């Protein structure tokens, strides 16, 4: 055999081997992963113009189990599953979802929800109190992801088909908790005959929401398609999107071109330049909303030079808040205190300003400043985060003029966090920069996690230990549940203490959501309590 014939033969053998290796045995694409919808889940139409195409930049789903799901899939899950209530950032209150009304006892320890009549799961079973109890109890028992939000619950009783009663160990705002983005889903725990977790993992759903999974193809460009659930309690009268497709697009420029061409409906995120371009495009509309995620500059209250409150206040005053927000070009908005706008407890009058003269005076009082001793501070922040880098650049140049040397280290989160938690306080940093966001629409998350005294450091990376502050934080859930005006006052008071008196933190900005979507979409309102979620059922497809 001449060599090129051998080459040909070898090529043929390779091709056959590769084919055999990759052979999927004649399966139909998507059939392996996608569920076989039951008789109740027949697609309710499929006209191309009523498909809402969402463009995420990463994988759509990593965990299909509504009990443990705690990642990107929230965008799809909130359209498939429902919770008892939903948070409205405009009114700062919860609204009916699967529960049509609810009451709480004066001490905030007993909550009774009345469930909506006529709601059904995609499996065909009714959404009654027993089913809701089973779902929440399973989520609590699994104890994964955000399941801790139910920590206050002592007992759940299904009094009758529509009455669900919770008894709590301590007072808590259960209407807020049951509106959480994660772990609050009500689902049919009897959906699978075998292992429910495994069944979910195969791409099935047991929700009651307007949409159900049509196909899920891990790794494909259109990873997930949802289709209208005919038996949805809200009905399908009037114009609605009948399908939702998730088209994974890592490159922002590609996402932008797809939107311009009208191939997709909604782009989750663009960069500042493309966002500006989108604003001037006829077929596209944009929306910009502050999120519930803000940047915290945590100052070490326990050790090192910043133990002196004057120096911490000097650092707070050195930050160029307005310059930073301007440089962020729309991806951030000035913060007014620790609690972002749209949450109970937001204190709008607290927007900070740069005050270099004030900072210099404070430094002088502490024995530092221009002409005096040079102060050296260490700072850690997230590697690769351009926005944090901007803050660090502006801060170190401002501090440098004040005779303060800032040695800033960009680190991977785990390294940064480990250093912050170091048992030996001398190994910790003076300034720790990180983002925070709540798992449900409650400002309590910032206070209990970041500023409550801890035995072992977790997220209290300003190392604040103040019994009076702790006591006030501990009272917040009960106040939120029983006396919202009192809660507002407590939040304002706490923010004043933590930011102004203790100077444990500076809050430079709140991140902004910048969306671009087709002009034809009607009724879109961003709800930062559900990060990046579009409630597609609420939208109208226009012409």
């Amino acid at each position, binding site marked *: 055999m001449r*060599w090129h014939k051998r080459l040909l033969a070898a090529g043929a053998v390779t091709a056959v081997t590769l*084919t055999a290796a990759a052979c999927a*045995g004649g399966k*139909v694409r998507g059939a392996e992963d996608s569920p076989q919808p039951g008789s109740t889940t027949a697609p309710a139409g499929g006209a191309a113009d009523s498909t809402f195409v969402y463009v995420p930049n990463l*994988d759509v789903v990593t965990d299909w189990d509504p009990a443990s799901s705690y990642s990107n899939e929230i965008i799809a899950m909130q359209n498939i599953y429902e919770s008892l209530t939903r948070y409205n950032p405009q009114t700062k209150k919860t609204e009916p979802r699967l529960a049509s009304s609810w009451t709480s006892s004066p001490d905030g320890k007993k909550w009774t929800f009345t469930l909506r009549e006529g709601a059904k799961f995609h499996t065909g079973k009714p959404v009654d109190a027993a089913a809701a109890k089973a779902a929440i109890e399973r989520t609590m028992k699994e104890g994964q992801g955000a399941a801790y939000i139910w920590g206050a619950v002592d007992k759940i009783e299904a009094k009758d088909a529509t009455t669900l009663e919770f008894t709590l160990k301590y007072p808590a705002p259960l209407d807020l908790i049951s509106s959480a983005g994660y772990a609050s889903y009500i689902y049919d725990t009897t959906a699978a005959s075998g292992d429910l977790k495994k069944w979910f993992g195969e791409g099935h759903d047991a929700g009651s929401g307007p949409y159900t999974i049509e196909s899920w193809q891990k790794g494909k460009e259109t990873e997930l398609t949802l289709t209208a659930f005919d038996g949805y309690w809200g009905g399908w009268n009037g114009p609605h999107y009948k399908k939702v497709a998730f088209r994974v697009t890592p490159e922002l420029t*590609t996402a932008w071109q797809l939107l*311009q*061409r009208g191939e997709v409906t909604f782009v989750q995120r663009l960069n500042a330049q493309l966002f500006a371009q989108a604003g001037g495009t006829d077929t596209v509309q944009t929306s910009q909303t502050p999120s519930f995620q803000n940047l915290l500059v945590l100052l070490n209250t326990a050790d090192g030079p910043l133990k002196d409150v004057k120096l911490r206040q000097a650092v707070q005053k050195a930050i160029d808040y307005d310059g930073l927000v301007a440089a962020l070009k729309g991806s951030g908005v000035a913060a007014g205190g620790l609690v972002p706008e749209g949450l109970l407890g937001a204190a709008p009058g607290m927007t900070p300003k740069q005050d270099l003269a004030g900072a210099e005076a404070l430094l002088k009082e502490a024995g530092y400043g221009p002409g005096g001793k040079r102060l050296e501070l260490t700072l850690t922040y997230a590697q690769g985060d351009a926005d944090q880098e901007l803050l660090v650049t502006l801060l170190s140049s401002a501090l440098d003029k004040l005779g303060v040397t800032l040695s800033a280290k960009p680190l991977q989160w*785990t390294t940064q966090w480990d250093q912050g938690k170091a048992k030996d306080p001398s190994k910790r940093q003076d300034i720790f920069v990180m983002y925070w966001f709540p798992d449900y629409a409650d400002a309590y998350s910032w206070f209990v996690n970041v500023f409550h005294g801890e035995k072992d450091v977790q997220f209290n990376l300003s190392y604040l230990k103040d019994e009076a502050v702790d006591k006030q934080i501990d009272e917040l859930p009960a106040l939120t549940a029983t006396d919202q005006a009192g809660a507002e006052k407590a939040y304002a008071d706490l923010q004043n203490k933590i930011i102004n008196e203790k100077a444990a933190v500076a809050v430079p900005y709140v991140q902004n959501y910048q969306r671009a979507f087709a002009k034809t979409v009607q009724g879109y309102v961003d709800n930062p309590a559900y990060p990046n979620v579009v409630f597609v059922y609420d939208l109208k497809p226009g012409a």
Partner: protein
Amino acid sequence: MPRYLIRRLGQALLVVAGVIVLTFAVMRLVPGDPAVAYAGPKATAAELAEARRRFGLDEPLPVQLWNYVRDLLGGDWGTSLHTRQPVRDDLLQAFPASLELVGAALIIALAAGIPLGIAAARYKGRLPDLSVRLSSMLAVSVPVFWLALALQTVFASGLGWFPVAGEYDASLDRTSPLHLYTNITAVDALITGNWPILTSTLSHLVLPALVIAAYPAGVVAQMTRAALIEESSRDHARLERALGFGETAVLTRFALRPALNPVLSLIALVFAYSIVNGFLVEAVFNWPGLGRYAADSIRSLDTPAIAGVTLLVAVLYVAANLAVDLLQGVVDPRVRAR
């Protein structure tokens, strides 16, 4: 020959072993705790400990290395922290898509590169030669990311001749579902006669394949030209000319076959190179292949997945090198003695 084969195979295995140790070291030495990546930034100490136990991160390093190698050999490439699926399954899903794209690119590269190389050799020193040399130099040196964006902006977004991104029109999954045999969409559509998916895939394939084809097309054109010029100066070519064959006939009928030997052996190496070169192209065109998987893995610090992709690419390189060496050994016995 058997001794040469065994020696080269042994060397290749050594390289693969080295790559395994290296990927393991990178996985363990990069800052960032895989347990945190898996359990999430707000995980409790107990959840972290459970994740560490689950991935064997609580064992001493040599034991971890031993377990890693044992699992690899047993076909267990670890679990992705991000997709939470076995890395091997993820790779088996993503690899055929990359293979499809690179395969198409190589077909384009050969179809364009060889005739251009012939034309350049035929008109050596004249305008066609100069333009082929210039364009192949451009094709080899232009940044692939730039080319991808440029073609996308002009031919997809601007002129609308091709789709902007994607593998095929996803709505076809409902109207004409595809039966999978090889997991390579175009091949499966062809062998099952699924014309809507085939035409949709081909139109989606054109732009990304063209971008990836640029480099190999340039290399093949230059290589073909050089080899043809060398062949056509040999004695047999002079004889053929003396016998009255025209220049084109001398090149295509007699010189081309021997001249293609080095070109074909080059293709194996270019194939492995193109898989990696295609990573950025896949990201720009949303092609659901290894590149997008690697990009997602890096973005989410998914070390087992990054290690899996690295290992697969390294094995492809080694295999391609081995194939070239063995082929050369078959063609030219002198190589075996080296």
